[in-house]
């Protein structure tokens, strides 16, 4: 789960990392009121789950109420790499004396473990990485090696070390997959402050983390929003063939063979392992609701997911919701025969069957193009 900047900063602040005090706003008037309350100059920052806001014009400094209104109006509603800006964060504009970059991520290196990706001074060559054994955790020598080898100036070493230690503690206690601060600044008064925060939390840790508070549905695309609400693993793409499959690798491969058959996939949708009939029905409904989808390819190879469940799901979905597009179903693996039997016993006019993945892709593309 990718957090918005202000959510990430709140978590860092909870962990003791100094962050600018600010507030968020969803409207221009609110934004101006917040800016007035904070006092100028303020930074007005688009809250989107994607990098590169600054370059895209999503971060502006306002020196007074008029500028605040102007910038808030300009940024709210902006499209940044396909993300519509629906929320702003307003904070005091910092006087920056020095900028650094710090990041913790779980990566496997030669020996596995957690890597702090980079602690770079303004000079991009000055990058230090350390490998942190997750059994051992973050020790003072890790911080020492990062601040010295990363070229942090003498007067900021203690402050940066302390923030790195706090960041790692937060990285672990929050079940973060990524914790990145860029820039980690030193103000002209000498304070080390996290001026931005990129935090990705692990949804698998939901049983011990309070993730619900961050679960805002910002997707403006109706299929993405519906998929999120139903807990489907859905990614919108640009083609005409809706794709549903089980297993990330198989679905990725299905996108590939659709392209090789001369079409383009409209989406990625992985129903995962052991998906129930209801799950399959929901998936069909979401994919079908996309007006650019001209045909749907269901590619299931059974392991935990059993063929009869998939078939029941398809039959149930077709009974309950109106699926206008032709559906090509390809079923193999565990209980595939039973599944095919169920489909055969419940004939539908728009239901097509294929015996191989390549045939299924070709048929789906043909139907999409013929439609």
């Amino acid at each position, binding site marked *: 789960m990718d957090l918005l900047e202000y959510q990430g900063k709140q978590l860092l602040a909870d962990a003791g990392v100094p962050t600018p005090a600010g507030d968020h706003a969803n409207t221009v008037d609110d934004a101006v009121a917040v800016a007035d309350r904070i006092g100028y100059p303020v930074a007005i920052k688009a809250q989107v789950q*994607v990098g590169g806001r600054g370059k895209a014009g999503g971060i502006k400094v306002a020196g007074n109420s008029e500028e605040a209104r102007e910038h808030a109006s300009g940024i709210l509603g902006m499209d940044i790499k396909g993300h519509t800006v629906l929320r702003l964060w307003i904070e005091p504009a910092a006087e920056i004396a020095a900028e650094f970059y710090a990041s913790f991520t*779980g*990566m*496997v290196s030669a*020996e*596995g*473990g*957690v890597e702090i990706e980079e602690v770079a001074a303004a000079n991009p060559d000055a990058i230090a990485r350390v490998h942190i*054994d*997750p*059994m051992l955790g973050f020790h003072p020598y890790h911080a020492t090696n990062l601040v010295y080898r990363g070229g942090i100036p003498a007067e900021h070493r203690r402050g940066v070390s302390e923030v790195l230690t706090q960041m790692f503690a937060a990285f*672990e206690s929050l*079940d973060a*997959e990524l914790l990145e601060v860029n820039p980690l600044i030193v103000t002209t008064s000498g304070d080390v402050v996290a001026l931005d925060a990129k935090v990705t939390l*692990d949804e*698998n*840790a939901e*049983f*011990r983390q309070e993730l619900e508070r961050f679960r805002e549905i910002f997707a403006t695309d109706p299929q993405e929003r519906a998929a999120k609400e139903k807990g489907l*693993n859905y*990614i919108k*793409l640009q083609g005409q063939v809706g794709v549903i*499959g*089980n*297993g*990330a*690798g*198989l*679905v*990725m*491969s299905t*996108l*590939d*063979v*659709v*392209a*090789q058959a001369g079409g*383009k*996939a409209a989406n*990625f949708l*992985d129903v*995962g*392992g*052991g998906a129930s009939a209801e799950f399959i029905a929901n998936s069909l409904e979401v994919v079908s609701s996309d007006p650019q989808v001209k045909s749907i390819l269901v590619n*299931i*190879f*059974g*392991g*935990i997911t059993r063929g009869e469940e998939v078939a029941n799901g398809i039959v149930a979905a077709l009974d309950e919701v109106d699926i206008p597009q032709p559906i090509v179903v390809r079923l*193999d*693996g*565990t209980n595939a025969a039973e599944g095919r039997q169920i489909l055969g016993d419940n004939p539908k006019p728009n239901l097509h069957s294929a015996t*191989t*993945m*390549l045939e299924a892709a070709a048929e789906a593309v043909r139907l999409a193009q013929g439609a």
Partner: protein
Amino acid sequence: MAIYVDANTKVVVSGLTGKEGRFHALRNRAYGTQVVAGVTPGKGGQDVEGIPVFDTIAEAVKETGANTSLVFVPPRFATDACYEAADANVDLIVCITEGIPVHDEAPLYSYLRYRDVPMIGPNCPGVLTPGVANVGIMPTEIATPGRVGLVSRSGTLTYQVVHELTQKGIGQSTCVGIGGDPFIGQFHIDVARRFNDDPDTDAIVMIGEIGGDEEERCAAFIAAHVDKPVFGYVAGFEAPPGKKMGHAGAIISGSKGTAQAKAEALEEAGVAVGRNPSEVAELAAARM
């Protein structure tokens, strides 16, 4: 002899008394696998269709000679079962469980590497040595005994390729689904090393996917150390950058981790790369 799993494999199933554990353990046994024990604390002394249940893996190992741990317990308890299996001195852990937090997986990875206990998974379909033993959830009817070793992160994509191979008359020595999580016990490179050393394997089919640099590292390993023919496929040519494609690690960051780059790295290492599951199977069939 195959790799990881063979006729000497004796499986102890953590979570045997659960729904999925029971279903697949009995299925594995029906295939001919020696499923000798189950473990559920508090249910020691019971049995599941004749498979004795113990309270701890240590007891199961002591009483039954189990040497392979198969883990089906829910995510919040799964890493604990893997630690317990390692401390009970099994030779192999196969962890099927999906949805384990990465901060639980990371120290487990470290511990198992240090202790030198190979783990397949987590979040994987397991290991199938066709005609001999199945430890995990792979559908066995699609596989057939033979001399091609197969390794993949993905479950169902593995099945797809196995299916294609079998349909083309190419049997498999062992099929290994290593799992889609960022911290898995055995990587492509570990499996490739074993296949290369396995006298019953003549060629290797390696299925990669976008994200990370594992395929690139494995390509370097293949170029330097593998003398058997290798056939490859990388899923995700159509995946857009910056989107996590189902698996936690399957994400293109900027221009890094693309299927194209991985396919090229494998080709440079002498691997014959197909552009879809059928093509890689055809390439293998043409050479075998």
